[in-house]
């Protein structure tokens, strides 16, 4: 009698756990949708064109967090250059072949010592010009910037290729 009660109690506990897991799943998917909307709006506001009404895709590849694609215009990628002591975030507007047209900084961690230099390197990378302005911090930071640019270029190329393939069908 008590054993059967114990078994039924365990099943009740498992059912409660299952209900909680389902609730957590729904909340997670709702939060993902809302954060996509919020990030797309932030990108549109930072690019200074709220009329873009971009759609957001979370990517999380390398330093790239995701992509905002407007109905008309260039796609933008949100990058977060993350190190142990903080992060620096920026939006990279790119053209169809994945080259960066401009970088818009959108903040970073308070006290992140590499923040200012990353801003300079990102700005230089988007303009594509060499500069005499050098710093000892450039050596550890330049591979990060190069890796980010390569990731963005690869992602944008694969996106435009997929769009072209869809268009041909």
């Amino acid at each position, binding site marked *: 009698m*008590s054993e059967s009660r*114990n078994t039924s*109690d*365990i099943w009740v*506990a498992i059912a409660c*756990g299952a209900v*909680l*897991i389902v*609730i*957590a799943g729904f*909340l*997670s998917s*709702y*939060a*993902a949708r*809302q*954060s996509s909307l*919020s*990030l797309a709006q932030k990108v549109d506001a930072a690019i200074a064109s709220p009329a873009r009404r971009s759609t957001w895709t979370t990517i*999380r590849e390398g330093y790239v*967090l995701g992509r905002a694609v407007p109905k008309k215009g260039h796609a933008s990628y949100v990058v*977060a250059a*993350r190190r*142990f*002591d*903080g*992060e620096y*975030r920026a939006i990279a507007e790119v053209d169809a072949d994945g080259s960066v047209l401009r970088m818009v*900084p*959108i*903040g*970073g*961690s*308070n*006290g*992140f*010592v590499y*923040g*200012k230099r990353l801003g300079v390197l990102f700005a230089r990378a988007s303009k594509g010009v060499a500069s005499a302005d050098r710093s000892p911090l450039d050596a550890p930071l330049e591979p990060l910037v190069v890796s980010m640019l390569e990731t963005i270029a690869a992602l944008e190329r694969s996106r435009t290729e997929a769009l072209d393939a869809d268009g041909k069908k």
Partner: protein
Amino acid sequence: MPMERNRGEQKGGAWVALAGLGPLLVFSNGLSIGLALGISFLVVHSAAAASALLLPARFGRARIFAFAAVGAAIAASLCASIIRLLDPFLFESAYGRIFIIAFTLPVCRACIMPETIADRERGVENVVRGLAYALVVAVTGAVREFIASGTVSVNYSGASTALLPIAAQPAGAFILIGLCAAGFNAVMRAAKGSER
């Protein structure tokens, strides 16, 4: 004598729990991330302790531990979702760290079923303990950010100042923990000396 031993065990337990909080103290390098980790820790720890306390003892220790651990993981997931709703960027930098909370030593300890009735009656102590640990995590974040940048702010801004940047790095967390432990020990020794 047994009372002294009990006090010694409690003190040792507190140091062990603090060591178990180590990963969170290392990750907590700013006020906003400290608050996110601290509040998540409080929720996860309380969920684990409440599950271990409220489930019937006839389930057995192993099953209660498993249910409480699952409850802690679900609580961590709920916290992560709420942080994502509040600040997507904070979620992106903190979500991996939030899920570590469910595997920290204090949370694993809270998952263990209280053995005696006296232990069960002291269940509320677990909540207070969780609150204290959460405060430690949040305060560590704020102090490290202050030492690293000279300012403390909840929202990330573009402007970044630097005072003693090592404080924001993992080494800074260990230096701070070491200094706090040494200070605490010195204060305790001084208090004992004045009692004599």
